[in-house]
């Protein structure tokens, strides 16, 4: 064992999430998990893998298909001092429970004048790319980032997935934890090798509200998050051959948003492409534009560019869906246009 041991234990993003939860469950008996198929099944997208076996049905609770009911129950439990980790299977289902999320989970702390806290994690799968069509492929992080009172984190890789999960559970605020199905490293879905990576076994945190410079570069800044970070890193590597140096900013958190890291990069490159798998208008891409334009529009050597879903529902057929997703080809084209 000693000779073959490697310091790089490589695990999937899904496993990293579950590991983060398990560590917190061992540490704090107030942490429990609740959602549809989180028990024996282990979460449809693997977010609760192996938790049921270790913690049992009392702490890893399968629920009826009653999202308003069980998310509300999570809020009630959190208000009474527990730390529920609640899964909404797909973020697309937010519409059946949005009131609990945004009128209750998000607002109770404020409405109570700071007297009540809601230390709860709501996790949900996001994203498309595998022909799951209009009701099961959305990202919607812009929707939640717009509404005050919820921290919103969106990891792009196994390390951040674990560290952000631990931070989220320890946070005294409600945290919406959005994980992209395509970045989970699932055996049954096309995946980028970046979804399997070294993650330390022990507990560690990734601070909520700090973006990462996923790759340094000097010509163009790509501001992005989630699966699109993986695509953007691929593109950045590919464009080296064309002599283009791309900096990739992985936002990791939308609320709070790390505007300093974005502005520092744009100050350096003067060219910015925001890549977002959420809908284009009235969302993340606009917010980044505003952050820059408020600070100093003269930073931009070229007009601002954004690549996002062009305000259409996500279509089913692969050719249609690939047509509207921010694929590597479109990212590369966007970067090249900024350099032209």
């Amino acid at each position: 064992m000693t000779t073959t041991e490697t310091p790089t234990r490589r695990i999937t993003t899904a496993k990293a999430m579950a590991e983060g939860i398990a560590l917190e469950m061992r540490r704090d008996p107030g942490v429990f998990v609740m959602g549809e198929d989180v028990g024996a099944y282990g979460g449809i997208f693997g977010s609760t893998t192996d938790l049921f076996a270790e913690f049992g049905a009392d702490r890893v609770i399968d629920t009826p298909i009653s999202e308003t009911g069980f998310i509300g129950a999570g809020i009630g439990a959190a208000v009474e001092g527990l730390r529920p980790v609640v899964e909404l299977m797909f973020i697309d289902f937010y519409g059946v429970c949005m009131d609990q999320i945004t009128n209750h989970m998000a607002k109770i702390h404020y409405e109570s004048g700071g007297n009540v806290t809601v230390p709860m994690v709501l996790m949900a799968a996001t994203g498309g790319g595998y022909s799951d069509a209009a009701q099961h492929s959305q990202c919607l992080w812009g929707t939640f980032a717009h509404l005050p009172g919820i921290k919103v984190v969106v990891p792009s890789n196994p390390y951040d997935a674990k560290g952000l999960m631990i931070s989220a559970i320890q946070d005294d605020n409600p945290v919406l934890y959005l994980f992209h199905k395509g970045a989970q490293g699932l055996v049954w879905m096309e995946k980028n090798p970046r979804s399997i990576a070294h993650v330390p076994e022990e507990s560690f945190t990734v601070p909520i509200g700090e973006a990462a410079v996923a790759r340094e570069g000097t010509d163009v800044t790509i501001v992005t998050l989630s699966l699109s970070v993986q695509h953007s890193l691929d593109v950045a590597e590919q464009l080296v051959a064309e002599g283009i140096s791309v900096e990739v900013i992985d936002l990791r958190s939308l609320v709070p948003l790390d505007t300093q890291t974005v502005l520092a990069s744009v100050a350096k490159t003067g060219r910015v492409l925001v890549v977002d798998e959420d809908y284009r208008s009235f969302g993340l891409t606009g917010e980044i534009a505003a952050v820059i334009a408020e600070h100093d529009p003269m930073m931009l050597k070229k007009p601002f560019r954004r690549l996002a879903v062009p305000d259409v529902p996500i279509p089913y057929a692969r050719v249609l869906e690939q047509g509207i997703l921010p694929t590597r080809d479109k990212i590369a084209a966007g970067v090249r246009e900024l350099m032209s």
Partner: protein
Amino acid sequence: MNPLNRLDLYKQMVRIRQYESRILQEYHADKKPAWDIGAGLIPGEMHLSAGQEPSAVGVCANLKQGDAITAPHRPHHFALAHGVDMNAMTAEIYGRDTGLCRGKGGHMHLFDPENHFSCSGIIAQGYPVACGQAMAFKRKGTDHVAVAVAGEGAANQGAFHESLNLASLWKLPVIFVIEDNDWAISVPRSHSTANASNADRASGYGMPGVRIENNDVEAVFEAAGVAIDRARAGGGPSLIEIHTLRLWGHFEGDAQAYRGADLDTLDARDPIPLYAATLAEIGDLSMDQVASIAADAAAEVDAAITFATSSPFPTADDALLHVFA
């Protein structure tokens, strides 16, 4: 089950009515000449509970410190009956910095963690939250219960259904209370609800359901006692529908043109004089006591209003605090 103390029930009802009557006055006092909902010492919507005292008083007389309540947009009677501090609550309604929520919540969002009391302005959405409080009580091994309150209109909202199923499935110590005051704003029960009694819906979730007629505080007390004892003993949730009475408008400013003949019989159905008469008849209440109970209540409410009106306002910058802990 707590022992029945008729005089206490009466006193609590009078205290609440006195409170609502004074808030009514205060609310309207300075909205003239052009009536402006946003103006005055108490701005915003105001849903008062006059006539519905029996439900809050009958239920809460069975609760103990550490039990929880989630109330809806019409919360004052439950808040007061559950022991929420009248001064802090009043200051909140007046938007003061000494308020329960430092002026951020207002009358539909009263949060008192000490008494595990909260309310919400969104119909039926306190039901799921109560389930979660009950989960926490159970997981902690206590015998505390959570009471979830909503109107008969609210019982047609999806959250009602999900919560009842969840609570029954998980045998949670929740008591679902429906205050049927015949109206949801201008919509009568017959136009909102397909069956005659929400108690009948309880069996669809495998839980006991009972409907109490005549706005009868003692019947509420008894039924709530049974349900709460059952919940404390691990027997799971119950539903109690109380046929009560909305004496005033849905909110202040509601002209109630839609209400018709129903309005004419209100005085005769006011539960407080009716209960006073009952108690007098059985010798439990004298005319002197009626007067002194009213006077005590008035004094307490006056003091609370004085506390509120003499408290400082928050500052505009305080609005930026407390988004996150």
